[in-house]
């Protein structure tokens, strides 16, 4: 009887997103006769109390939060499943299934907020909606079609997990996971074209160009489309990892058994690992996006970096500093449950120092708009000392040092309980050390040299700094993997024996990633200023002015609170229907411990 009721719940849950998309389609069809009668929709609608802008902002942001989660999680679910297949380690398969369970329950929420957003646009911004749909109609139909395929692939992927568990069927199941990612990415690429068109419409489109005359592909593959695609793809992984980490932390804190605690400790570690690893490459995608924005329109670029949004980057620097500090703090505490890690603990205070200095430099402003009184108080346009640290040379140097330090934390964590047996261990470690030193020296050299060259030359230096860091990371990882083959164990990781305070670092990470995502969404959207479509379709509503950061932060905070509350509710509901999947990772002192290095990715 219980089984039957679970089935009903699952299929109700499963059919909800599809029903929502069908309802939107019917509404669109119902509106057609009105258009035929010569009815002209109004340009703007009104939303009570908070206004149309805030209403559509909240709907769009919440849709994006959930969409990012349901696009990011399948990426690492399918990777975890592959690790399980190739290593014949069942724990990864169970972990992948649990990731997917989180996905399933979030999928309906994504569709609901998508529907709210579309209905919001139709009722509050009918003029803009009409304009966009006239240009992008074919891609909207394709979007809906792919959404159907994506939904059913997800249901097959999750509900077929136990049925297609062995042999060729398992490979087929993994193929479904890959297909799910392909559908999800296709959906994202289509939606990104609509919003990037609003930012960077093709040059030939002017205010006088009728939407029907805009060339579809030129509008679709506009200047910022691909940079946004890449940036979002990586950011979704970061975000998904952080939310999974917070979920695991919550489960860890409420766990009743050692086995459960060990499982969620391991899951939390993996969530953090995924989030921090992807975070390290995210700034490079950000550089590319920023460069494309400048190339598209110099004025838009300067508005973003030095205009009314200049203070936003100070707040962003603070948030990223919190991410680096919390991520490293979690790792350092985690080393307490790894035998052998004590030999690395003395280094953590120096790593903390580098992170703190890096964060301080990164948050130092330079190009701030200042009035006469402020300039007088400062003693000039720039602060006599801090002004030097505010330039990009110093900031790029700082962030690259922070990335190197975080990578070092991961490396020490990974090696903590291992003892290499290869004959070239010392030489390998020396080469690894030398790679760190060379990367740091390259970063420092170009950081200092940047002060002596024009800005246009200096911008190019960031590429050399990034390449040095990435190259060092790749080479060090390759050497480490070779060096640790067949390594002896210094003792098993005591999963589950983690102080409670470490889990709060995971919550801070999740909140900060979510808030940062909202902030960057405001930056991307806000640089259009009083244009729906930049320099093509003007915003003539009462909310045309772009608000200051204070107001934006309140809206962002409201969105984050709603999102986290809904996530908590959805995860709780999901837990009611099905029991958590316990991976069987070591259960503290009372359970059999995994082999050395297990659980590390």
């Amino acid at each position, binding site marked *: 009887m219980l089984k039957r009721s679970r089935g009903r719940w699952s299929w109700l849950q499963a059919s909800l997103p599809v029903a929502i998309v069908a309802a939107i389609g019917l509404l669109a069809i119902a509106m057609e006769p009105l258009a035929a009668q010569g009815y002209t929709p109004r340009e703007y609608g009104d939303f009570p109390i908070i206004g149309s802008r805030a209403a559509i902002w909240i709907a769009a942001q919440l849709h994006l939060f959930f969409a990012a989660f349901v696009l990011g999680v399948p990426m690492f679910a399918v990777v975890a499943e592959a690790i399980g297949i190739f290593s014949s380690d069942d724990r990864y398969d169970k972990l992948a299934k649990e990731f997917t369970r989180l996905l399933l329950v979030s999928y309906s929420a994504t569709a609901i907020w998508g529907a709210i957003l579309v209905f919001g646009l139709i009722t509050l911004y009918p003029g803009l909606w009409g304009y966009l749909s006239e240009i992008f109609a074919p891609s909207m139909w394709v979007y809906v079609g792919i959404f159907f395929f994506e939904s059913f692939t997800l249901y097959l992927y999750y509900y077929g997990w136990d049925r297609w568990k062995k042999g060729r069927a398992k490979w087929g199941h993994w193929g479904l996971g890959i297909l799910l990612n392909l559908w999800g990415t296709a959906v994202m690429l289509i939606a990104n074209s609509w919003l990037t068109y609003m930012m960077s419409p*093709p*040059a*030939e489109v*002017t205010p*006088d160009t009728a939407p029907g005359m805009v060339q579809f592909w030129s509008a679709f593959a506009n*200047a910022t489309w691909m940079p946004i695609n890449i940036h979002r793809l990586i950011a979704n992984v970061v975000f998904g990892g952080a939310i999974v980490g917070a979920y695991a932390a*919550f489960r860890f*804190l*409420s766990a009743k058994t050692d086995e459960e605690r060990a499982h969620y400790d391991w899951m939390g570690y993996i969530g953090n690992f995924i989030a921090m690893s992807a975070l390290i490459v995210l700034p490079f995608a950000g550089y590319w996006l920023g460069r494309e924005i*400048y*190339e*598209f*329109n*110099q*004025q*838009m670029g*300067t*508005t973003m970096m*030095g*205009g*009314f949004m*200049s*203070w936003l980057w*100070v*707040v962003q620097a*603070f*948030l990223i500093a919190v991410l680096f500090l919390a991520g490293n703090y979690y790792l350092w505490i985690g080393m307490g449950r790894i035998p052998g890690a004590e030999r690395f603990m003395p280094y953590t205070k120096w790593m903390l120092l580098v992170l703190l200095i890096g964060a301080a430099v990164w948050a130092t402003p330079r*190009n*701030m*708009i*200042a009035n*006469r009184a402020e*300039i007088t108080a400062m003693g000039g*346009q720039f602060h006599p000392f801090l002004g030097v640290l505010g330039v990009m040379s110093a900031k790029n140097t700082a962030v690259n040092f922070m990335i190197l330090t975080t990578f070092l934390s991961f490396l020490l964590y990974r090696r903590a309980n291992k003892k290499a047996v290869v004959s070239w261990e010392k030489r390998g470690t020396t080469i690894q050390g030398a790679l760190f030193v060379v990367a740091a020296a390259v970063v420092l050299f170009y950081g200092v040299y940047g002060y002596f060259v*024009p*800005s*246009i030359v200096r911008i190019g230096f960031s590429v050399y700094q990034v390449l040095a860091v990435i190259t060092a990371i790749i080479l060090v990882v390759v050497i480490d993997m070779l060096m640790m083959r067949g390594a002896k164990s210094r003792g098993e990781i005591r999963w589950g024996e983690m102080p409670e305070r470490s889990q*709060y670092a995971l*919550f*801070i990470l999740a*909140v*900060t990633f979510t*808030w940062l995502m909202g902030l960057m969404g405001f930056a991307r959207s*806000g640089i259009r*200023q*009083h244009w729906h479509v930049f320099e093509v379709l003007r*915003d003539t509503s009462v909310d*045309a*002015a*772009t*608000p*200051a*950061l*204070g107001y934006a*932060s*309140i809206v*962002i*905070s409201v969105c984050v*609170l709603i999102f*986290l509350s809904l996530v908590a509710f959805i995860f709780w509901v999901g837990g009611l229907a099905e029991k958590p999947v316990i991976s069987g990772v070591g259960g503290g002192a009372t359970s059999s411990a995994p082999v050395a290095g297990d659980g590390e990715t």
Partner: protein
Amino acid sequence: MTNIKILGVMIGTIAIYTWIANAIPQIESAVPEELSFSSDVSEAELVAAGAELYSGGAGCTTCHGLETRAPNLLTGFNGEGTIGTRCGTRVPGQDCKTYLHESMMNPMAYVVEGGFDPMVFQARVFSGAQIWALVAFLQDQGGVVTVTGADVAAAEEADAAAPAGGPMVASNDPLDIMRGNLCLGCHMLEGEGAELGPAFDGIGSRITTDRIRRSIIDPAAEIAEGFDHLAGSMPPNLADMLTARQLEVLVDFLAGQGG
């Protein structure tokens, strides 16, 4: 108790971020005000409107509020004083009002030396009345306001007479087309114009006819080597201000500049 702690950490973190974002200076991006003045507009009205545009919707402070991208116009620059005091001596023979007005109508030709980036092309972003209001405000920064209601009225008349989105000049002579569309504000041709963008001299031997046409229609598509820093400066809607015949005349003329 655990749940309350989790809630506390999450809400506390959100509250700190919200507080920081509210504690820093609050700058809103206002919408440029549509201005309409009668010929008896007062000096004070013009200056006030210009001040609002300058620090608000016009976005001037994005570059001119700093000293890294453009001279700060409201504070002393290079010991020459505020813009109102130095505008009359910037170009020999040009009075302050003319200089400021020309700087906005043809900004590329008036980039101040000192390693600054060229000013973003925005002469057509503002109405004539808005530009005169900005001139009045800048003159007021230490100088004497000489903009009059007659200047504004003439500009509004010109705006009203100008066809929306039509060609800037009626002539089909390539030099008239280039001068009328301010091409020579950035490009040099036989000693005329400015050396900011690639010279027109010899352009036909450097790039193909198709690329010349494409560069006019979609300037951002391909940036000439060595001119990356000017990307975005050329108006993207230039082709909309040419007739089809003017475009072809211009392309043929430039393709014929073989050097």
